[in-house]
């Protein structure tokens, strides 16, 4: 079982890896199903509200002001797939900001897991059904638990404004259900540390090479010192150790933001993402490192002869394919845009639109959660039949308890 087979056993590979087409169609399915449900729910809500002369508290001020008319509810304009994607993406950044806003630090792998939970959640759920604002704190709290970074709930809830402990716990089960109870997220962060460790060993000339590698570590050290600095990598420092540190910091930055905000986790493996980030930071260094892992590959021209055009001439099929994938990932990560003024305008528009098309039945998650736990009862008032049933049950239990503890015996003793 080699490393690739190990990855194939992970739930991330089995359930959460998609081709781009599959990902798109999955999102389209989710969107159409959610819009249908939202329309049905609003219609139901509207008819209920008109029937009870507008006094229903369950809708909690639901946006059915215009929808109150009997047939207008069908005209609800739902979010498109693109709008949903933008919206969720924005709230992923909000999640990162939120995790930085606590007075205790949250490590990067917890943040990244939380963001992945949100992304996975919105693969099969729509923001129209569950608003990201409700999901984010819960996802982050769940991530602290699954990543073994314990924070007490009270402490956690104190750190978020206008959020109670119940608000955090309420959506927890629907999130785990949407995650298909697979909590394991494989990240590229530790992978990057591993690569940097080996690069450090290579630069010291103390690296343990693969047994089939033709060169000695001393040779590789010499080659490494003469790696070219081409293209846009002008700021690459002279010393190899500084160069590695610089690449590490840059790649770490990419992995901490762009990698977790894009769909990279769904489309590629963490190892590929890690190498792509490193490739963006220092292409020559990455190619050199990969060449030590594929002994058949030949790097040419020898790096110390010409400054530019540092490429593989002779590549095994796997390596050439890998390089293509790395370019793809690098493109994806680099194309990740920062939220500018225009994007903000767009988000405001989507938010307004969402206000009109939210599913009124799924707004009060806390109430719904309580209702589920209490067998469908509303706070304060217990339905008559349920109360009766409970009373009968309690009575029965009491009787059985008496029987068990020897009511009969006592009677026998008396008689």
């Amino acid at each position, binding site marked *: 079982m*080699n*490393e*690739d087979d*190990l*990855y*194939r056993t992970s739930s991330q*590979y089995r*359930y959460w*890896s998609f*081709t*781009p087409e*599959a990902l798109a*169609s*999955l999102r389209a*399915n*989710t969107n*159409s*199903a959610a819009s*249908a*449900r939202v329309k*049905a729910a609003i219609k*139901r809500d509207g008819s209920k509200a008109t029937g009870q002369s507008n006094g229903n508290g369950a809708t909690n001020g639901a946006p059915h002001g215009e929808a109150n008319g009997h047939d207008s509810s069908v005209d609800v304009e739902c979010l498109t797939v693109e709008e949903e994607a933008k919206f969720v993406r924005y709230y992923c950044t909000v999640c990162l900001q939120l995790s930085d806003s606590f007075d205790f630090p949250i490590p990067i792998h917890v943040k990244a897991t939380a963001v992945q939970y949100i992304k996975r959640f919105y693969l*099969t759920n729509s923001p129209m059904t569950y608003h990201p604002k409700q999901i984010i704190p819960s996802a982050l709290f769940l991530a602290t638990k699954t990543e073994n970074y314990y924070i007490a709930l009270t402490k956690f809830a104190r750190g978020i404004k206008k959020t109670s402990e119940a608000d955090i716990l309420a959506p927890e089960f*629907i999130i785990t*259900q*949407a995650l*298909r109870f697979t909590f394991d997220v*494989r*990240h590229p962060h*530790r*992978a*990057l*540390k*591993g*690569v940097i*460790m*080996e690069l*450090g*060993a290579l630069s*010291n000339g*103390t*690296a*343990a090479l*693969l*047994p089939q590698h033709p060169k000695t570590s001393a040779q590789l050290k010499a080659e490494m010192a003469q790696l070219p600095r081409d293209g846009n990598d002008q700021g690459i420092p002279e010393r190899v150790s500084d160069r590695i*540190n610089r690449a590490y910091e840059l790649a770490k930055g990419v992995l901490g933001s762009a990698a977790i905000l894009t769909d990279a986790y769904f*489309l*590629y*493996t*963490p*190892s590929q993402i*890690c*190498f792509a980030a490193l490739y963006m930071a220092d292409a020559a260094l990455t190619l050199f490192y990969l060449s030590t892992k594929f002994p058949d590959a030949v790097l040419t021209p020898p790096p110390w002869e010409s400054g530019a055009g540092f490429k593989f001439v002779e590549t095994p099929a*796997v390596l050439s394919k*890998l390089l293509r*994938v790395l370019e793809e990932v690098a493109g994806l990560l680099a194309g990740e845009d920062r939220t500018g003024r225009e994007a903000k305008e767009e988000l405001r528009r989507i938010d307004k639109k969402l206000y009109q098309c939210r599913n009124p*039945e799924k707004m009060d*998650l806390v109430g719904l*959660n309580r209702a*589920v736990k209490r067998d469908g009862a509303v706070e304060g008032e217990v339905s008559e039949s349920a109360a009766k049933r409970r009373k009968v049950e309690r009575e029965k239990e009491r009787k059985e308890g008496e029987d068990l503890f020897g009511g009969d015996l006592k009677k026998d003793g008396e008689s």
Partner: protein
Amino acid sequence: MSRVAQRGGASSANRAGDGEDICPVCKTSRYLNPNMRFLVNPECYHKMCESCVDRIFSHGPAQCPVAGCRRTLRKNKFRKQTFEDIQVEREVDIRRRVADVFNRREEDFDTLLDYNNYLNDVEDLTFNLIYKIDLEESEKKLESYRLDNEQSISQNKALASQESQSAEMRKMMEQEQAKLRREAARREEEQLRREREEGRQEVINKLAAGDGDASKIARESHSIVLKKSSARRAALERQQQLTNESNGATKTNFSIKGLKQKVEPEPEKPYDPFGGLSDARDSYVLQDDYDVDWLRSFKQDPRHNVGGYDFKEFYDRALCDAFSGLGVFIEDEMAGKELSSIAPGSVTAAAQAVTEGNTNEAKIIAEDVF
């Protein structure tokens, strides 16, 4: 079993003392003739002493002298009794006679069932013969079968005798070879001893002659001895191979015809608790230590230096992470997968519920906790 037989013999000897050892025909006892031997004839199984047999049957067939028995006996059929119980003696004789005629083998039959049926029939016949049920008819059956199948009977007989012969031959060959091996080993030992002796003598001679360095001479002689021993080992191996080959050749000569080829069971492999899983890594070689800036502070942290915490675990995990999935191309590998198998049930079920209208509210609840 044997003890019971002994006790039976002892008791009978006690009972009669002379009763058993008295010839029923001439009433001579062992006391008078210590060399007395009793014989029986498979015709009637009446016991009599050797001298009686000589006396009565030397001139040709005669009637059994035992009162009431009118069978005509011949001298050449008399033989020594094998079993103490005369009934057993008789049964064994009958069985031998039947087995001589009915000597079909299992290979002659198409199925095991046929063979078993045949054995059953034979046993029925034998039983009839032993207990004298329809004796005439059974005898006739036996005779007619013998006449009908004379050829196959003789063939099978020849086969059986060949088998027993070849087995004997093989045994003999094995013994012969064991003897040869022992002899060779002895010779070998002798030679080795002699050579060593010679070498020592030579060294002493050289040292006595006084030319050259003493330690050098000793080393040289040592290397010579070593060379000789290694050469001898090679020769021995060659010889072993030769004998193995010849063994194989003899085996093919003595192949037994008609026997089913037995398949050797595979030797049991050593138990592998991981069922073939290995933790060997293809893309990196783990070092004992990595010198990286951000690791130094951890290495000095006493919390990481106590027992139970191993930096190698982290190194291994980090490097494994770095390469696990590097060769996994999701676009290729997931292309064949159907979307429905990827998508969780809630989406499709929910969509279905919506299209079917509000009546299916329960279904939605089943899929969705709220």
